[in-house]
């Protein structure tokens, strides 16, 4: 059983000026503990998929099953906690008026996590964040530091599926390598699945077990491994297994939601 099954997702953005059909028939699955990549050019609707899966926006039609249970919007209870997202711009992911520590306390308050300052500091040391960072405001921290803090904050909730929406495209090369390697290590420790949205084929090759390409609103699975830039070969054995277990369930037509009811929730990109 797949952790996440997405079948025939459809989404159109409407403004007074124009209609943009970003997803016409997008289907994919994510297994527990694997990373799948969604590739595509800018504006192709990659981020839309991530936001639908995390419950930030609703699809016009299609079904999403998480642990064999359909997603209910807005997401509640375990679904809300276990499906998380890491955004492209870490500098706006934190409240600019909060010191970093308050940003963490906010999460603890909302999700009823008890953590003393000592425990928080011990936890954050693994992410390369120390007491001095906690006292600063987001504007005083670098992009790499903020994105590591973001990873740390998301991981506090012990999620099972994280949407990585271009998490490193705003970071410098070394921070990018650090954040991505950190995410890989966390995946090994915690068996978390990633839905990695990127426009870099090379990064996807490094991280993902399977890659989908978003084209004309549909997802097609890309052949693997790519000859382009992959150097490590130990991952390829793992990939074979995922290829064998990968399957897509045909669309359920009855589950389509009336488009006009959702119209007011549509927003321009």
């Amino acid at each position: 059983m797949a952790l996440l099954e997405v079948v025939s997702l459809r989404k159109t953005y409407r403004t007074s000026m124009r209609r943009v059909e970003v997803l016409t028939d997008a289907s994919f699955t994510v297994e527990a503990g694997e990373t799948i990549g969604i590739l595509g050019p800018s504006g192709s609707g990659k981020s839309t998929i991530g936001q639908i899966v995390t419950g930030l926006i609703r699809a016009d039609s299609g079904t999403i099953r998480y642990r064999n249970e359909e997603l209910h919007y807005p997401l509640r209870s375990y679904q809300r906690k276990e499906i998380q997202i890491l955004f492209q711009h870490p500098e706006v992911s934190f409240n600019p008026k909060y010191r970093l520590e308050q940003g963490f306390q906010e999460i603890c308050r909302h999700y009823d996590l008890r953590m003393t300052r000592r425990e928080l500091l011990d936890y954050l040391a693994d992410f390369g964040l120390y007491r001095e960072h906690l006292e600063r405001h987001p504007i005083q921290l670098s992009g790499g530091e903020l994105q590591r803090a973001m990873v740390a904050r998301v991981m506090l909730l012990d999620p099972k599926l994280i949407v990585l929406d271009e998490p490193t495209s705003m970071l410098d090369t070394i921070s990018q390598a650090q954040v991505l390697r950190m995410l890989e290590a966390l995946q090994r420790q915690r068996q978390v699945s990633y839905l990695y949205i990127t426009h870099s084929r090379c990064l996807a090759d490094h991280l993902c077990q399977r890659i989908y390409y978003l084209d004309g609103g549909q997802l097609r699975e890309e052949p693997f491994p790519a000859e382009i830039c992959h150097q490590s070969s130990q991952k390829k054995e793992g990939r074979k297994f995922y290829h064998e277990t990968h399957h897509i369930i045909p669309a359920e037509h009855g589950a389509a939601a009336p488009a006009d009811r959702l119209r007011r929730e549509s927003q321009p990109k």
Partner: protein
Amino acid sequence: MLEIQNLTVRFQLPQGTITALEGVNLTLRDGEKLCVVGESGSGKSVLMLAVLCLLPENACVSGSILLDGEDLLQKSQKDLTEIRGMKLSYVPQGSGNSLNPLLRLGFQVSESLVAHRRLPRRGADQRSIQLLQQFHLGDEEQLVRSYPHTLSGGMRQRALLALGIAPEAPYLVADEPTKGLDSDRVGLVVDCFNSLEGCSLLCVTHDLTFAQQVADRVAIIYAGQMIEYETAERFFGSPRHPYSKALLDAVPERGLNAIPGFSPGHEDYTDACRFYNRCPCRTAQCQTQPKDRWDGERMVKCIYGAP
């Protein structure tokens, strides 16, 4: 020719003085393309703003910045206004608030043509459509009438590039022109920069793949100091500073290997080499700051990488 000599920038803050940039020497020859590479917080943007004389008022700048022999730091505001745009043009970073949200895109692109090239309004509008077409934004006639918020981040970034190259100034200063663009779009920026005949480019970036395609020369900045200054060919073939090696190893195409540790904060600066704590080849000698070792037009600030 743009010559930066012994440039040091300090900021006066309530907590004390912070040294953002220390003793930078570099030369940008006519028609040459120089990429300044560094992590966020390394001081590369400060270098760029110093060249444009756009640093905030609490900045204390010493050294000299000679543009065709004239020191920009000694110029009056009036002269600087004349120089910016006519001689020195700027491509700001696109993700944030570089475009005025209340003005249509076409107006903002053509504004620099009207102001600096003295083009009539109508001619400027035509020219700005052509400039936008160069970056394949799609439906440009319609686009010039739209407002910045309707554009995606990548589109805004490319519009800013069109705006920056519009006045055709002999010197172009670009701040992270590829941030957040996908590889196809980065290719457009590369083509654009490579087609700028006779224009000198000072480009601040952390995208090494992009730098490799554009740069004639590379300057690496780490914790406020320039640590390597090298021709692009040599740098991407055999970098000399251990940090430069680490930088290239972290490039996805070269293995995505992260070195441990993080660059030091301003309060952690000691007498040792700034890279000391992370350096795989440190020795007891590295407890004191290495000198800039110049060899003709190349420089490395490391005892290890010296020729």
